[in-house]
């Protein structure tokens, strides 16, 4: 080996990296020139002087440092080495920072998806999953009944007492229901929501009062029917416990309220306790109250002595620790078997007791809308994931060369996959963090939009379990979005494989599949929205058979002490109505309980008298003169009710609807026919019995949809108000001008100042509010569908612009060779339409399967409505076509001779790549 070869070998060791190679090349050139000029001996001496030069040593140091740095950034640390995680995070972060636009769009997409999911989950967590806020709240069970045909029923007083006496529960209590009534302090009535309970109520829930005491057995008293109806009888004072909020709002949090006596529903009640903050009964939503009750009072009736088929009681029991629900149900089965064997009333309709956990029953009405919401928002997240996976795939193929270098430097496939995965973990984490930041605002928005039926909304918030959910979602997102790019990275080819004219077929296929998935998901979401939208439109175009515009309703809280008899009640109605008619704009007014859209009462009605008469299950509305006119329900035959009809408490008259008339007397006129309905009668002691009363039909009116404009009512009977004089009368008023509550109160107060008059509501407003669940679903599913559509179209745009970018050179050349521009664009657009069409077909199938689940929300439109499906198809193809047209146009319009590096695929992404290639070459090439 010559001396100069040794010198060059030494230099090669001393000066690493591309810069070292260059320096050695420069030295070699000078060496060759010197050798020609002065001969090998002198040249060799010069060369050794160069090797020994102090600057060569300095250069060696500088280049080694630089080489080490470059190499570190390219070699993937070994598995298990401490710090490998940090390395991945740093490298991933560097990669993301280098493409800020791409990174920002990925993070924002994920943040929207994750934020929306977090918000929906926080609602689900609060409404369905959080345990009831009572000590061992998960041990509380709710008892109800089912009868023949699986109709759900409440319990009668005696049935509930038998449940309480059984061994099913550690402790149990009866609940009699909510009553919206009035409380009078200083002669001013104010509205009050009471919950009538039994004395064990607080003990069973396991919560002690904050102030004073709860109920004790001695607070209960039983009045005879005579005492109940006697206006002169002085009732004993009842016991009442305040909810904390009511204590603060109504009594200013004054501790001296204990012992105070107030008038509730005309009866004296003494405040004996105040419950701690946050305490309220969380009862099943079917009880119809979403507002927390203000006070708890005790029933003055002897419930256990009520008729067995008068069922209006619920029971709540505490299940002993360690006992499961099925053994409780077994015990209750024994009780109801005994009940059926012993009592004819229970056997007649095959009454069975049922038990469930109170918590699951409380959220039962919310489950449907929330499941729908979770599905919609889950779809949005899936679309977002597909979108992000596409973007990361694009990025992975852009990094192909860099990954190839890493592979050549010894990184395993697993390490490269991990590197790609670390990027998706990073973007998912950033998206998750931004999503959590967005979540509280989105949650508030959801709670504001939520229909009143959703219980426990006050418990909704972003808490630890919500954060855990978000973390889980974020991790899944990282995995779902990262796995494809990771696989793509793992198969990166070594560098120098040569530039391709357009992207690989596999790449394009993966992109197309992802876009297809996005389109499929978007089709399902948009179809759901379309169906809901059509339902809402159909709902608005229904004629319910009565007037909702310009009709106003309000209630008067007539109490038993102030109006104990029928004549005094009828007199009150008449005087209020006469005064109201003097008000300018008021055209008709009357009493109807319940009024259309405000509730429904049902009863078996006998056609004729006696037990042999056939029965019709009917809706009935207790009605006074003027109400049918105020509602604009068309009279078909006979007449409506008059004041004369109401004079006699025992002679009852009714107007029936056409549906009832057809059912009861298909071949003859309904006028003058007789029907009978049960009326509750009170004995001298505490016994109660129901008597069938004779009712004469005086008129026939058109049928209406008063329960829900989306379905027919049952056959309806408008029976004289005297049939059941109790309860709160609802006044229905037709007025050309809006009717302020103050005007109504003024007129009513002239007649009698004692009854509390509720706020006046228009039937139009009530009708809108009743569409709450549909509107909630539509608003949110619509918003999510919009978001999904936007994401899907950006996905289509992104993939196509990338694919077009890869094919740009090809398209340019073809355009330069004279290919028609429009034809080239069409070629690109056609491929987009093909992907979209296949996504559309799968989406249609999926929508056909999934929209069945929103059937209950749909009205007058089939879940397979062809018009909606077709509309969605046209919309998506249009969006995808436009998304493809833009990049296609851009591609062939660019100058084909536009210099080097025109395609996205070969554009340098940073200075690291030439360095990397050189390092690899210097390592791979044989020494000189």
């Amino acid at each position, binding site marked *: 080996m010559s001396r100069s070869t040794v010198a060059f070998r030494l230099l090669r060791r001393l000066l690493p990296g*591309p*810069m070292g*190679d*260059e*320096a050695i090349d*420069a*030295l070699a*050139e*000078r060496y060759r020139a010197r050798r020609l000029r002065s001969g090998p001996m002198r040249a060799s001496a010069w060369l050794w002087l*160069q090797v020994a*030069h102090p*600057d*060569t040593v*300095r*250069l060696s140091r*500088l*280049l080694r440092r*630089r080489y080490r740095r470059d190499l570190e950034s390219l070699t993937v640390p070994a598995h298990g080495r401490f710090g490998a995680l940090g390395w991945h995070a740093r490298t991933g972060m560097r990669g993301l920072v280098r493409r800020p636009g791409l990174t920002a769009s990925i993070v924002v997409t994920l943040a929207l998806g994750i934020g929306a999911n977090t918000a929906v989950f926080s609602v689900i967590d609060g409404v369905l999953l959080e345990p009831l806020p009572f000590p061992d709240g998960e041990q509380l069970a709710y008892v109800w009944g089912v009868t023949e045909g699986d109709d759900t029923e409440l319990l009668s007083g005696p049935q509930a007492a038998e449940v309480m006496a059984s061994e099913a529960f550690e402790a149990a209590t009866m609940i009699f229901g909510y009553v919206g009534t009035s409380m009078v302090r200083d002669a001013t009535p104010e509205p009050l929501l009471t919950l009538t309970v039994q004395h064990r109520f607080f003990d069973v829930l396991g919560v002690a009062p904050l102030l004073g005491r709860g109920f004790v057995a001695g607070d209960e008293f039983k009045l005879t029917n005579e005492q109940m109806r006697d206006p002169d009888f002085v009732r004993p004072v009842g016991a009442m416990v305040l909810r904390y909020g009511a204590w603060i709002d109504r009594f200013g949090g004054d501790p001296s309220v204990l012992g105070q006596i107030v008038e509730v529903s005309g009866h004296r009640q003494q405040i004996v306790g105040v419950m701690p903050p946050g305490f309220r009964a969380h009862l099943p939503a079917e009880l119809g109250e979403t507002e927390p009750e203000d006070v708890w009072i005790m029933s003055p009736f002897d419930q256990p002595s009520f008729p067995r088929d008068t069922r209006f009681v619920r029971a709540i029991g505490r299940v002993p620790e360690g006992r499961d629900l099925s053994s409780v149900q077994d015990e209750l089965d024994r009780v109801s078997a005994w009940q059926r064997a012993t009592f004819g009333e229970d056997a007649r309709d095959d009454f069975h007791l049922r038990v469930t956990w109170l918590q699951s029953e409380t959220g039962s009405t919310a489950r449907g809308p929330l499941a729908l919401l979770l599905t919609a928002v889950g779809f949005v997240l899936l679309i977002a994931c597909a979108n992000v996976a596409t973007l990361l795939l694009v990025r992975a193929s852009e990094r192909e060369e860099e990954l190839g270098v890493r592979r050549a430097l010894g990184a395993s496939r697993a390490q490269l996959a991990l590197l790609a995965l670390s990027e998706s973990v990073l973007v998912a984490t950033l998206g998750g963090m931004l999503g959590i930041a967005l979540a509280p605002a989105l949650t508030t928005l959801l709670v504001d939009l939520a229909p009143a039926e959703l219980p426990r909304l006050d418990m909704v918030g972003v808490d630890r379990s919500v954060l855990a959910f978000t973390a889980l979602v974020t991790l899944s997102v990282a995995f779902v979005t990262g796995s494809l790019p990771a696989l793509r990275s793992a198969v990166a080819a070594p560098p120098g494989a040569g530039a391709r004219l357009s992207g690989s077929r596999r790449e394009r296929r993966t992109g197309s599949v992802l876009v297809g998935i996005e389109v499929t998901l978007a089709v399902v979401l948009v179809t759901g929205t379309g169906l809901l939208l059509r339902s809402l439109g159909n709902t608005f175009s229904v004629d319910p058979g009565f007037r909702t515009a310009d009709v106003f309703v309000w209630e008067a809280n007539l109490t038993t002490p102030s109006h104990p008899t029928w004549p005094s009640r009828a007199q009150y109605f008449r005087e209020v109505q006469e005064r109201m008619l003097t008000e300018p704009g008021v055209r008709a007014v009357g009493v109807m309980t319940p009024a259309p859209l405000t509730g429904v009462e049902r009863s078996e009605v006998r056609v004729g008298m006696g037990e042999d008469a056939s029965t019709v299950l009917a809706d009935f509305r207790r009605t006074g003169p003027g109400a049918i006119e105020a509602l604009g329900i068309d009279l078909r035959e006979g007449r409506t009710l008059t004041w004369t009809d109401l004079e006699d408490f025992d002679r009852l008259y009714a107007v029936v609807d056409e549906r009832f008339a057809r059912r009861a007397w298909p071949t003859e006129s309904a006028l003058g026919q007789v029907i009978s309905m049960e009326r509750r009668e009170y004995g001298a002691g505490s016994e109660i019995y129901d008597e069938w009363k004779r009712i004469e039909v005086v008129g026939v009116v058109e049928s209406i949809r008063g329960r829900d404009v989306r379905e027919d009512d049952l056959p309806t009977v408008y029976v004289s108000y005297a049939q059941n004089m109790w309860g709160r009368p609802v006044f229905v008023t037709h007025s050309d001008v809006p009717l302020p509550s103050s005007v109504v109160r003024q007129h009513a107060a002239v007649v009698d100042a004692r009854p509390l008059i509720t706020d006046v509501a228009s039937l139009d407003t009530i009708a809108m509010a009743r569409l709450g669940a549909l509107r909630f679903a539509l608003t949110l599913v619509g918003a999510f569908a919009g978001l999904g559509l936007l994401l899907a179209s950006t996905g289509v745009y992104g993939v196509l612009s990338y694919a077009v970018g890869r094919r740009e050179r090809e398209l340019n050349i073809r355009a330069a060779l004279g290919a028609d521009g429009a034809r080239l664009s069409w070629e690109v657009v056609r491929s987009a339409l093909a992907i979209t069409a296949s996504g559309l077909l799968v989406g249609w199938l999926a929508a056909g399967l999934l929209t069945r689940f929103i059937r209950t929300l749909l009205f007058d439109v089939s879940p397979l409505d062809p018009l909606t499906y077709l509309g969605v198809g046209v919309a998506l193809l249009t969006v995808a076509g436009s998304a493809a047209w833009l990049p296609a146009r851009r591609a062939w319009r660019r100058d084909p001779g536009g210099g*080097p590096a025109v395609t996205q695929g070969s554009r340098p992404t940073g*200075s690291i790549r*030439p*360095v990397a*290639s*050189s390092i690899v*070459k210097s390592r791979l*090439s044989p020494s000189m």
Partner: protein
Amino acid sequence: MSLGSLQQMAMLAVARLGDEAFAKVVQEEVEAATGRELAVSTVYVTLVRLEDQGLVTSETTPPDPLRGGRGKRFFRLTPAGWSELRHTREVMARLWDGVEPA
């Protein structure tokens, strides 16, 4: 920061050469101006240090088959390099002001 004279000369050469500022040409330019031969490693040490200081930047041309598949590295002044060079000239001009070389 004050530039050494070799650094100044290298930067001026880079500035003068424009797109042709390859290390070899820079060396020849400085050698021509000073009339002295420099060690190859001296020129590289100077350029590498200037690059590390952010005063020059280098880029490699696409691979050249005539150069064994390697590209050529050429240098360019960064804005910081330009301002440093200008600053040095002003300092020198101020210091030279009123001084007459013998």
